[in-house]
């Protein structure tokens, strides 16, 4: 019931009042139907229980977790130490310390990597280093569990001890 300006009660308002209530309640019930559907259908639950499902959890092959230097079974890698990845990295998370190695047969000295330092803490996983590598020596691995208690553990040396460059990679 609304009162018009001249003080006469307007009973047409009552109709609106009741239809307001009706529509309001109807819309509320529509909403409750949706949530009601889900509570009665526990099969649609989407929760993944993460540490428990570790065995079955498989990341997509393109997922970027960390940079690794590919080593084959003979402990050989393809990195020539050209430091293209170091230049491509926007954050300076790759540092290549290169050394020289003299070929015993020809006597020519070639540039090889001494240590391939990778600061995981600075990496933004932009994939530019992988794209820039001319010999496809590095790739992105799918490991994502990087949390450690000591920050210094996030600075990694990617070339394994005693590893050598694959023969024939220039």
């Amino acid at each position, binding site marked *: 019931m609304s009162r018009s300006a001249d003080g006469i009660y307007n009973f047409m308002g009552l109709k609106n009042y009741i239809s307001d209530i009706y529509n309001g309640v109807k819309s509320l019930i529509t909403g409750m139907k949706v949530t009601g559907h889900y509570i009665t259908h526990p099969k649609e639950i989407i929760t993944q229980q993460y540490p428990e499902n570790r065995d079955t959890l498989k990341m997509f092959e393109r997922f*970027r977790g960390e940079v690794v230097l590919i080593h084959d079974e003979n402990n050989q890698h393809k990195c020539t130490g050209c430091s293209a990845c170091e230049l491509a990295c926007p954050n300076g998370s790759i540092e290549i310390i290169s050394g020289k190695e003299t070929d015993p047969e020809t006597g020519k000295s070639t540039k090889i990597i001494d240590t391939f330092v990778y600061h995981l803490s600075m990496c933004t996983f932009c994939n530019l280093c992988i794209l820039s590598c001319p010999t496809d020596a590095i790739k992105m691995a799918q490991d994502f569990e990087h949390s450690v208690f000591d920050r210094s553990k996030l600075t990694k040396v990617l070339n394994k001890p005693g590893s050598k460059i694959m023969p024939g990679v220039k």
Partner: protein
Amino acid sequence: MTEQELITNIETVPETQEYFINMGPQHPSTHGVLRLLLTLDGEIIKKIEPHLGYIHRSIEKMCEKDSYQQIVHLTDRMDYLSCHINNEAVCLCVEKGLQLEVPERVKVIRTIISELTRLSSHQLWWGVMGMDLGAITTFLYGFRDRELITDIFEETCGARLTMNYNVPGGVMFDIHPNFQKRTKDFITYFRKKLPEYDELLTGNVIFTERTKDIGYLSKDDAISFGVTGPSGRASGFACDVRKRFPYSAYDRVQFEEIVYTEGDCFARYKARIAEMWESMKIIEQLIDNIPEGEHKAKTKAVIKLPEGEYYQRVETARGELGVYIVSDNKKSPYRVKFRSPGFSNLSALDTMARGNKIADLVATMSTLDLVIPDIDR
């Protein structure tokens, strides 16, 4: 007492005192580290003064040191909800400078992923909007559907949020073999779920009461403040860059520019919901017609833009993003400016929310869909 006496009595009630309240930097509904200094009279907002810069990372300054390839991944971190679109903007701008024609395949892939990004952004916004208004369940439903899109991204682009899928000249990898199937599955799934969004919020009487005639922004103000995106279009400002200056593959798809004239929170809400339908339409038109070809045009390892100024505008989920590159023919740009949509949208907040209540400010802010890294850059 006569009516006149009553009025004078009301007028002699002692004046209330205004007080200040700091909303943020840590506040559940500012969606990040935005600080609003509110001047309140009771619960009525008298003035809003935004204080920004809590996560200013000087991306523009960093760009002056980086190569063009490296700039792209920085833009992921601006508006992280439409990261692909930001990447695309930079790449398009660089390609414009290089006068490089990208393969047709790239254009279509970029458009599809842009629209998926927009969908995922709007899904998140819908969830958060509900949560801001107190319906926490919507938040989970929004994320449930968004998860499927992030899975598509993860499979094709390699990351879920900051994917850095674009490189100047094309995209980083070709699409994954599963991409088309997954996308189509998602569209069929989401076409069933989107009406649920309407049932839960759009029609709900509490929701409509909370949003109708709240946070009004007139068309003139929208243009003057540069409020773009769904927020601007809800005020009647036809500002869709995809229609006005088509880029990538938007010139070959049919879709409607959503324009409402009400300019209130509910119109902004409806505009975004309608935009989700349009996005799905765009994806459906393109997903089966991805042309064969290269996924990347040949570019030099070191990109040098010719001297000059380049401006590229794209439509992100929040509005118009402009990338302004000034080049002096070196390997890094001389000056980069990102005209971020959130920055301009935020400046209209004071006009929109003044005179409303605190609860309305929350509704207004969530319909503006602010992403704070986008504002602070």
